[in-house]
């Protein structure tokens, strides 16, 4: 049985439809990440699961029960907000025990549960402080502690790490992953950061303009994106998209000409029939797939270099000014303005049709 089920869930604000029919099954204990650009509806969808936004159409079930009209507190969820949303006039202990106090639990039970959560999150020395006396990371831990004490069926995280600096974000990301492992809880997590999505998720839901573009495991989305949007959104640096045209081929093979790269022809192996000659396509190649042993070659001029230590990013341009990003683990002896031949294995290339959907 799924812990959370969404059936044709829709949300409109006046005449504007924000969520356009989402179907999703989230299994018990799964870590699901909603990812997408700003305004794609991921936070709205999470708030709809929480009961903080009404549902215009469709059904939301949690633990097998229909929750459309159920109050947030009765849904068996706990939510961690982007701004932590700690009550500023209460101490850490009061913040963490507040929901339990409202649920009518005896004082001793509240103390026991709060102490247990504080131990898990190493918050014991901070229990009598108010939120303003805590750092960003500590506040976030308190917010997570407040969620833990409720023993919810589902944890909802709304961009919880966005307000933290880069170092703390990495640290908290590991903490959340550990927490998921230790508690075995179902987590629905919203982020616009695809690195967070890739590292935390069992399953990623990519959203765009209120529509689910693709659902899958992180590496499945990385290796087999369903369309240009997912291919461009998942992976950093972003996938290169090269405009091309099918110039020939046979069963199991197609030849794609790239006019912006001096008419270079890339032979691509296919599992099915080749598209008709003249079909406009987009060839997708990840920056990390470039290697000197590749069978396809593209002439480019180096525009900019980024030495990151573990890898080097070469931002280059074709003769027609098309940008091509190359990531290499080695430290190549190239300078800005140099011309070079970027090679990649044609087997690593993905092909997208004119409608943006993946052909191969």
């Amino acid at each position, binding site marked *: 049985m799924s812990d959370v089920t969404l059936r044709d869930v829709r949300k409109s604000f006046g005449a504007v439809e924000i969520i356009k029919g989402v179907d999703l099954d989230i299994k018990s204990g799964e870590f699901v990440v909603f990812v997408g650009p700003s305004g794609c509806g991921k936070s709205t969808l999470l708030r709809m699961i929480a009961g*903080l936004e009404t549902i215009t159409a469709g059904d939301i079930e949690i633990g097998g029960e229909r929750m459309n009209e159920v*109050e947030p*507190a009765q849904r068996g969820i*706990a939510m961690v907000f*982007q701004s932590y*949303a700690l*009550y500023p*006039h209460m101490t850490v202990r009061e913040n963490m025990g507040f*929901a339990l106090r*409202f649920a009518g639990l005896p004082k001793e039970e509240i103390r026991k549960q709060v102490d247990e959560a504080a131990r898990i999150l190493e918050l014991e020395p901070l229990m009598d402080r108010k939120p303003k006396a805590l750092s960003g990371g500590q506040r976030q831990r308190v917010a997570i502690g407040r969620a833990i004490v409720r023993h919810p069926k589902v944890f909802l995280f709304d961009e919880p790490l966005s307000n933290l600096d880069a170092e703390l974000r990495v640290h908290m990301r590991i903490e959340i992953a550990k927490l998921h492992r230790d508690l075995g809880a179902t987590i629905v997590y919203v982020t616009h950061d695809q690195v967070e999505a890739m590292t935390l998720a069992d399953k990623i839901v990519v959203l765009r303009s209120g529509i689910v573009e693709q659902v899958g495991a992180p590496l499945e989305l990385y290796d087999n994106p369903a369309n240009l949007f997912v291919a461009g959104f998942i992976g950093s640096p972003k996938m290169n998209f090269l405009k091309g045209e099918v110039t020939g081929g046979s069963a199991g093979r197609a030849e794609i000409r790239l006019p912006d790269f001096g008419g270079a022809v890339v032979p691509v192996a296919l599992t099915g029939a080749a598209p008709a000659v003249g079909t406009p396509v987009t060839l997708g190649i990840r920056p990390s797939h470039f290697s000197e042993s590749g069978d396809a070659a593209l002439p480019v001029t180096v525009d900019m270099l980024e030495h990151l230590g573990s890898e080097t990013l070469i931002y280059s341009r074709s003769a027609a000014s098309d940008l091509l990003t190359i990531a290499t683990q080695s430290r190549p002896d190239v300078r800005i303005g140099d011309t070079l031949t970027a090679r990649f294995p044609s087997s690593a290339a993905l092909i997208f049709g004119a409608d943006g959907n993946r052909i191969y």
Partner: protein
Amino acid sequence: MTTHGLKKRLASAAVYLFLAVMAFLSVFPFLWMVIGATNSTSDIIKGKMSFGEGLLVNAATFFSQVNAPLIFWNSAKITIIATVSTLLISSLAGYGFEIFSSRFREKLYSLMLLTLMIPFAALMIPLFMLMGKFGLINTHIAVVLPTVASAFIVFYFRQSTKAFPHELRDAARVDGLKEWQIFFLIYMPVMRSTYAAAFIIVFMTAWNNYLWPLIVLQSNDTKTITLVISSLGSAYYPDYGAVMIGTVLATIPTLFVFFAMQRQFVEGMLGSVK
């Protein structure tokens, strides 16, 4: 010293001079009031600006002419009830206007703000007739009632509520609080500096209220300190020393409230315009 340095110093001196003059103009009436409380009527009329020896005589005159405990009690009662009810009702309205959306919200709000344009003089007669119909003339309820839904305080609370983090309300809903509980247990404590600033404004307005109580309070046992001081000053042979004693005593509660809440007042005023 360079020309630039000299110019900077002169500009700074001019600013300080201006501020000193303004500060003196603000403090002068208080100083004059305190000095007046120690002088006789004739000295006050002559414009004597030094402390005299008439404090005890003036105080004795004041307390012999006025039932001080009763009128201070009347003022305090009206002020406390008016302040508490105005803060409660107007903040609820301001919160509601900001948090809950409806088709009519902005129209209703604009209509409410329009009432700020109507001078009180134009409302006095209809209000008086209304209070008369309810049989409330010469009661303290009649003084309090017209003040409890203050358009200005509603406006002030709505503006301040814009700074209230909406995620706190969401968190409280997830924690199981009803709307009224969110208001009393989360909103009110979080917005305490806004309440402190509004408290000072409403308290001073209620304590110093003169015109409306003058109209609706007709018997001596219901009158407030402002009415009594005014009647002392408008006597055939007014004793200005006693008037000044009354004024000094009437100023003490507002000064006390202001200094007690000064820090929150400044925070509240800043918070409302940020």
